[in-house]
């Protein structure tokens, strides 16, 4: 078939931020399905809660401090996270590097704290269905946290090498976006794990 050029797109940029770029939509997709995974796990928790006369089963509720400390750190982490985002939009390499390092440190601290949280659940996974679902949910969110931290580490390393090309700033911005989801996902899980057993 004959072709008829009606438009030239050579002036378009080769990368973009947010909803203009492809990877951002990929991130949304993964958030949707991971979010669904969390929702299903929450549903399973509430189902077991509903069918059992005693809750928690044969255990006291988790100690509050590790989860609560995490909530505080998560919420505060939004500040350096947003600063990294702005630096990425300005393509300020020095600030982006600092921002990524800070975020790696925060993530690592949270992972350590997560260790304490497991230890303070006051139940083992094999004690009862209550213990099982609590460990499963915390395990899911920990996997989620660990992969995001791993991702941030790799990105940070990239930004210190010759791969720190302009379009990589868009990856940084997507990473920031994803972190906000990690934070957001934790809040309902915190209420569920730490407060529902105290009802």
């Amino acid at each position, binding site marked *: *078939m*004959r*072709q*008829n*050029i*009606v*438009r*030239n*797109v*050579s*002036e*378009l*940029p*080769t*990368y*973009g931020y947010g*909803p*203009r*770029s*492809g990877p951002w*939509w*990929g991130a949304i*997709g*993964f958030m*949707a*399905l*991971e979010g*669904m*995974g969390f929702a*299903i*796990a929450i549903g*399973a928790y509430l*189902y*077991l809660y509903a*069918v*059992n006369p005693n809750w928690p*089963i044969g255990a006291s509720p988790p100690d509050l401090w590790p989860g609560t400390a995490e909530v505080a750190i998560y919420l505060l982490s939004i500040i350096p996270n947003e600063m990294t985002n702005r630096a990425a939009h300005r393509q300020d390499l020095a600030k982006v590097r600092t921002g990524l390092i800070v975020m790696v440190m925060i993530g690592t601290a949270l992972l350590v704290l997560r260790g304490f949280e497991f230890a303070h659940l006051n139940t083992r*996974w*094999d*004690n*009862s*269905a*209550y*213990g*099982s*679902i609590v*460990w*499963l949910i915390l395990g899911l969110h920990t996997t989620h946290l660990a992969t995001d931290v*791993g991702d941030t580490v*790799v990105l940070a390393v*990239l930004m210190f090498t*010759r*791969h720190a*090309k302009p*379009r990589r700033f868009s990856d940084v911005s997507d990473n920031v976006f994803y972190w906000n989801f990690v934070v957001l996902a934790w809040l309902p899980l915190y209420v569920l794990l730490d407060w529902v057993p105290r009802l």
Partner: protein
Amino acid sequence: MAAEPRELRDDVLNGLQLSTQLERVWRTPSGFLGALMSVDHKVVGRRYIVTAFVFLLLGGILAILMRIQLAGPEKTFLSADKYNQVFTMHGSTMMFLFAVPVMEAFAVYLVPLMVGTRNIAFPRLNAFSYWMFLFGGCFLWISFALNVGPDVGWFAYVPLSSLQYTPTKRPDVWAQMITFTEVAALAVSVEIVVTVFKQRAPGMTLDRIPLFVWAMLVTSFLVMFAMPSIMVASTSLILDRLVNTRFYDSSSGGHPLLWQHLFWFFGHPEVYIIFIPGTGMVSAILATFARRPVVGYPVVILSLIATGFLSFGLWVHHMFVTGLPQLGAGLFTASSMLIAVPSGLQIFCWLATLWDGRPVYRTPLLFVIGFVVIFVLGGLSGVMVASVPIDTQVHDTYFVVAHFHYVLIGGAVFPLIGAVYYWFPKIAGRMLSERLGRWNFWLAFIGFNVAFFPMHILGLIGMPRRVYTYTADMDWAHLNLLSSGGALIFALSFALLLVNVIYSLRKAELAGDNPWNASTLEWATSSPPPPQNFDRIPVVKHRDPLWADNESLPVVAGLSAERREVLLTSLAEAEPQIREASPEPSIWPLLTAIATTVFFIGSIFTPWAVLWGTPPMAVALIGWFWPTGSKEDEE
């Protein structure tokens, strides 16, 4: 060094020069290693389609084994034990390794072409998805061959599948196979969604998207919302069996019904995950062979979306006999019946299209008409089992077996075979034989009905499902023999399809770009399409671009001709926004899939696999994302 040369763009090249240059940039590297590195959606899609059909063949062989065993009373062809394995493998293979993957496979091949782009979004993820599917399927079948295949039904109900009742590794194999195939399916759905949202040709606004693409978009959302449920369910099952968690153990606060809820929250939408792509195929085929656009385009889209939503409200109808509260059962009966409405609307739109068009009855259209007939019958028996009093009567009888084969085979397999006849010329560059095609259709249609219609009656006169034999005094023998004969005829029709494909690949006439005079963009490029899909990205100004602009195709220029670039457009209006780099071929998706396989299989045997299995996966993922070898990073 002189001033940096300006990048080579496609606006300075023309005709053959342009094709050759783009082919060099986009082709899959040669050799065996090159084949393992391919990230071309057409290469991956073709592999996906062929692999899924191999699983259909395997699942079909098992079906025939079952029908031989059931052909007469008290046969000893299969033992009770083997029969359990065979029907479990049949159901699992058909649902997880054939029906869902084959639909995704067609989407992987067709959607990028139909929306007018050069590759799928996230091509490496796409390659990874295929390897995961392949390894998961091989894992299941190798286990079966080694006599550790699952034997607890394709839904693996607890407590039967719990350690206490099934202390072998069989249910673990089943549960882990689920995770393999779900990872693959989830990856493909994200790719499809992003391809449709961001990579549509300029001007392909939301109301100009081909109906097959709409169907795959809705399906992708269903996968994203339904499959996490089965993954949570099967992971919990493995944990119960391996590290003593108590999710399904009623002695420690767990609950067997939790399994059924999680399973059917996925399992019901699963049926629509199989059926909705089938309707997309039907719409594509109908428009072409009725030689007019499908009547009621917006109605069809709204029905697709409504079906998607409703399918989540229905899972409980699989559990009417588990003693749910009355009100709940009433509600679910109502919504189960409601879902017949959007399906009915679509069927009216299709009939109106035929009525109003000038239909040419070639093989693909025959399969579509077969689909309508069978699916309407399946829908009727579906409305019957959706009502509680009837369901309590026929639950777990052959009536249900008849019903779901009518829906699955009528709703998905018939459109699928039609789609094979329809798109084969595009994929292979040659036509399938029309004469064999007609034989294929009539054998399939007659064989299918002879095989499955008697099962309705068998169910009503009391034959339960999942029995490996029955006694002569039950009076079930004649109908069973009839059914087995039908199954053989049905199987023969697939053999004929295979013959047709093999014959046509070599001997048949060349297809040309657009042999059916169809209207959508995949027909605007050569058959089979070159690695770059299109030399220039088309611009869409009508819902049926090739019918409206049949003299010359409007296109854009200005993309790179020396590296892989795709054009990103805006979500609603498809306005060009970005020229985004598209990944180069890579071996890392395969290595990541291998590492993941070791991790998944290892964790059936020891929880420590989670520790030693993770580092290789991490290394492979870093290799995957590390930007070496990308032309852009080496500038």
